[in-house]
């Protein structure tokens, strides 16, 4: 029984790993191809099946006048916008989530759950609807085509996620914790900061990671709300998608754009393991 279980477990894990990795391997292979090796027949292994070329990678740092896209600046723009917006969202979101988890709100028929749902319901709107009003909104306050404008918009996109996840995690931190702290003479802010927060590290990590991911992979708003001054990575990469599709450089850019987040994944994994050890009151 347990042997079969172990076998199935490893089988499934292996299967899933292959499934997860396969498109990346394909992207790696494709990124070294040229028009012929993509379009004449299926090829897999460089040198064996086709003559590899670095062109797909070179395109990413060449200037457009030479047929490239030059993603260096957009890369840093993306990092800046994502990190700033995530940080602000996490701070505001965590505070709001704490309030929703610990206190009772009442206004007419509105209860805590409704407020929480209000936060998350902001994510229901298809981005296309928000794009035009956001465009007009940002142009009124003069933040179109600027990093700051994108940060403002991304806060709206990311904060709901932070609130939603953190409410869940705060609910799992026993209330006695803050009560003890208050009895010990802390004010509510100290209780929150010194006692509750340290006990919700896994939640913070998860929420932070989601904010970073959703900020990093957004294409639509970055596309509509910028013109020439500011470009974010996905928009710049999509600009490769010409009528002759350069599969090779798109593959290379897919790999390049996922790279920094893999570092995030390692950090998250590390904290998750730690969170388990020092986890809340066990």
């Amino acid at each position, binding site marked *: 029984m347990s042997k079969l279980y172990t076998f199935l477990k490893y089988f499934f894990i292996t299967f899933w790993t292959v499934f997860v990795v396969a498109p990346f391997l394909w992207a790696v292979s494709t990124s070294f191809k040229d*028009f*012929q090796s*993509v*379009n*004449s*027949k299926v090829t897999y292994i460089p040198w064996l099946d086709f003559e590899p070329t670095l062109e797909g990678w070179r*395109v990413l740092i060449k*200037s*457009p*006048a*030479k*047929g*490239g*896209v030059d993603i260096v600046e957009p890369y840093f723009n993306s990092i800046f916008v994502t990190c700033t917006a995530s940080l602000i969202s996490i701070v505001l979101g965590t505070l709001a989530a704490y309030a929703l988890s610990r206190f009772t709100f009442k206004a007419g028929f509105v209860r805590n759950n409704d407020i929480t749902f209000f936060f998350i319901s902001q994510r229901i709107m298809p981005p296309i609807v928000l*794009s*035009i009003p956001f*465009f*007009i909104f940002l*142009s009124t306050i003069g933040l*179109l*085509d600027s990093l700051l404008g994108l940060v403002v918009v991304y806060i709206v996109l990311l904060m709901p996620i932070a609130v939603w996840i953190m409410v869940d995690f705060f609910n799992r931190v026993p209330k006695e914790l803050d009560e003890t702290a208050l009895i010990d003479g802390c004010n509510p802010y100290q209780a929150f900061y010194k006692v509750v927060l340290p006990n919700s590290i896994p939640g913070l990590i998860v929420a932070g990671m989601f904010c970073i991911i959703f900020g990093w992979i957004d294409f639509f708003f970055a*596309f*509509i709300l910028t*013109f*020439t*001054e500011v*470009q974010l990575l996905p928009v*710049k990469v*999509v*600009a*490769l*998608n*010409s*009528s*002759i*599709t*350069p599969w090779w450089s798109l593959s290379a850019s897919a790999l390049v754009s996922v790279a920094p987040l893999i570092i995030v994944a390692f950090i998250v994994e590390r904290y998750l393991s730690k969170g388990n050890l020092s986890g809340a009151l066990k």
Partner: protein
Amino acid sequence: MKTIKTCVTALISALLVFSPVAYADKWSDQFPHIKATGDIPGDCSYESMSKKNYKGKTLKINTHAVPVMGEPTALHAEQFAKLTGAKVDVTHTPAGDLYAKAMVPFQAGQAPYDIVFGFSNFINDWRRYLEPVPKKYVEMKQMKDVTPSHIGVASWDGVMYQFPVDGDRHYLKYRKDVIDNPEYQKQYKEATGKELKVPTTWKEYGEMAAYFNGWDWDGDGEKEYGSAEVMKKDDLMYAAFYSRSAAYSKNPKTPGGFFFDLETMKPLINNPGFVEALTDWVEATKYVPPGGINFGLGDEIGSFGGGQTLFSFSWDDAFVAAMQPDSPINNKVGAAQLPGAMKVWNRKTNSWDEGFNQAPFFVWGWAVGVAKKSKEKEMAFDYLCFFANEANHQADIGIGRFGVNPFRNDDFKVDVWTQIGWDKDIAQSYVDTLAQMEQSKNRVFPLRVPGTFEFNAALATAAAKALAGQLSPQAALDEAAKQWEDILNRVGKDNVRKAYAVGVAMEDNKQ
């Protein structure tokens, strides 16, 4: 010290030796892009532009993704900046989003871009936001050489809104090494009893494509297929359908509209001519490569250019890409006009007119305009004029990935193409094809009316349903026609009629 001296001497002698070989032209030294011709004198030549001073000014351009149109835009922007001292910012946007990317700020009353690239059929939606091309440019020598049909495409009611930088049309591309192969001609004759030749009707096209579908006819160990076509329901698909419909529905005896009957504004797209074309097209799903029903333009270019199919028809890109020196089918392709039909629908008599009919479709192509609210209009027009100056244009049209295609009388000369390595007979067939299309009196121009996108999208959706087998061709086109009626009612029949009359006048050779 001695080495330096040697080097300098070597350098000087090298300069002395080489300068007479390359054009004795300081501009081609500085800008290797035009090394084949050197600067060609004109109002917007390198020489003339270098006299302008736009220091401290910024020009903002939105163009297509790299490389098609995007690369030449950026390249000429860099050259323009070097010559005039201006700063030029270029952004690149995928084709499908060019319209929205310019339209959103336009409608919000802004002009974040001085120059916007798009397609020529955007003209009616865009023209109220675009600055007409000033007289000075319209009367320039380089403009005089542009063919009348491309002046027509760039203008609205005689006013030019888009600066001609590219010419586009749909035509047939075929594999010369198969069609002209005596072995295959014999084999085909034995199997079908018919001649293997460049197809002149869509029926012949279908028969040949079906015959050469699904087996390895070029001996590379891979299967080849009949035809690669844009069948994916996106922004370009309906163009392929109009190309297939023109021969069946554009009857020179019934002027007054191809898409609508100009008098009654009744949609014509569900008449038997269009149904016949869609029936052909549904048949075509059997001789495209696996997954061909999901091919966009990029897939089509890749498939034909990679040597996977016998035929293809759409813009120039696939042909020029196939003729690049590193292509496996370099000099193995031919060009011809779109096939015709042996009958054409006559909506006046409600019957088929028998006899051969052919109608070139001028699709639409890259078009570019200057925003009315731009603060740098003069610089913007100078840039566009420079983009399309003789030297740049000649260098651009030979580079497949640039997507700049012939639209000047000078381009229809064989030696322009043999110079870049094409076989003479291929160059001849290409030039003849394009020139014949220009001379035809039975042309179809794209739909350029308010709500163009809605009309085309409704048609594309219906055609896609037919291709996927969800609806019969007749039912699909009836559905499209009904939606066209709805759109007409929303937009206002008279608005559409007024706009459509402009295009019909060109089709009926009244301009």
